[in-house]
């Protein structure tokens, strides 16, 4: 598990980038928390800087959209899905259920 931030630091509509072996973003939208790989699968941009609307985030660089529930892109230019992770709330702190170190498959 990777510690993200206190619940209070992530109001609805916001996103935060979490330092992890592969950067992960935690999004708060539609009353729920979602965690997904932070780097757009198209080109180098941080999705935590993107535009969150419903259960989707739009990349700030080229406007690719990803479904936060599945990591699947819903439009070009992104073609490949991103990994999603469970988010756990414990004593007012959000955690991402992701390995703290890269495994052999990266």
């Amino acid at each position, binding site marked *: 598990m990777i510690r993200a931030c206190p619940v209070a630091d992530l109001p609805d509509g916001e996103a935060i980038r979490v330092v992890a072996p592969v950067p992960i973003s935690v999004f708060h939208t539609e009353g729920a928390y979602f965690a997904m790989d932070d780097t757009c699968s198209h080109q180098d*941009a941080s999705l935590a800087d993107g535009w969150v609307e419903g259960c989707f985030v739009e990349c700030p660089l080229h406007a690719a959209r990803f479904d936060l529930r599945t990591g699947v892109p819903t439009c070009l230019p992104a073609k490949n899905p991103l990994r999603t992770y469970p988010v756990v709330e414990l004593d007012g702190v959000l955690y991402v259920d992701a390995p703290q170190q890269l495994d052999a498959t990266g």
Partner: protein
Amino acid sequence: MRTIAVVGTSLAGLRSAQELRQQGFDGKLVLVGEEPHQPYDRPPLSKDFLLGKLDADDLALASAEDLAGLDAEWRLGTRAERLSGTTLTLSDETEIAADGVVVATGGTAKTLAGSGHLAGVHTLRTLDDAVALRRALAAGPSGVVVIGAGFIGAEVASACWALGHEVTVVEAAPVPLAGVLGAPLGAVCAGLHGHHGVRMLTGVGVAGLLGTSAVTGVRLADGTEIPAELVVVGVGVRPNTAWLTGSGIAVDDGVLADSGCVTRNPRVIAVGDVVRYQCPRRGRRVRAEHWTAATEQPAVAVRNLLAGSTVANYERPGYFWSDQYGRRIQFAGVGTGEARIVEGDPGERKFVATYTEGERVVGVLAMDSPKSFTRLRRAL
């Protein structure tokens, strides 16, 4: 329509083909491309490709499966020579009797008159250009001069700097990028060169290139000579419209089209760098010359082509980005009116600026501030 030909197989051409299929066109689709390569993404050519972080295979705009899914006839390495009505004549003398035509022929990098015979003089537009430039840089030229401090020139200068070359940028205008960003913010962006120790000379034109078979330097209008074994010319793009001579399609610095990217002939649409369309936001004809326009225009233009008349307009605000010296510049809308810093500090090379006309925000410029930029861009 039974047969539609898309002329040009870069971003705007590929997106047009994809839109045609997505919007239900199930007839014969022919894609004609002068370059021999499958569609590839150009923006990385002046960035990570020059730096060797990406290779040609990384630039593919669509997978082999996606391309096969288009169920199209590909005529790569073939140029369109003439258009008569909606019938194309290709460089291999074959004809395509189409019912609809998408013009997506893009542009050609402008060169300096009288420099064509000199080795070591480059432009950067195509993958082949980028391969040649990357190879030339790897050979370790003593002295690189970049002519033109627009975005391509700036990115090339940045890449050369990152690769450890001694670079000089020469720009004829007193302030680079002033036409797009206005003088104050143009100066801020162009200031990245000097901040990184790259020499920039502004307000001075190029009188000519030195050398007999290979370039040895650049002579400026004021008589200064700058030694250089490698020169990159980044002075803009000329739209590829010569093949439309005699077609009846109106051409004036681009293919003239209405606000829905439809030409004088409703069976011929034009998209991407080649089209000069009537921009509803600016109230005049513009050529966008940016990646985003090439991705967005086809949905509108194809809809109009299939409808047989203009039923939709292309009215999204323009957007482009540029990566230089580790900084990301993003711009949307138009750089007219009053420019104001609304966040950050240009001196720190991290800021957001807006352009306002009256009370209305008409443009946004940001350096290394993607989150705020995105919010302001959405409000345009």
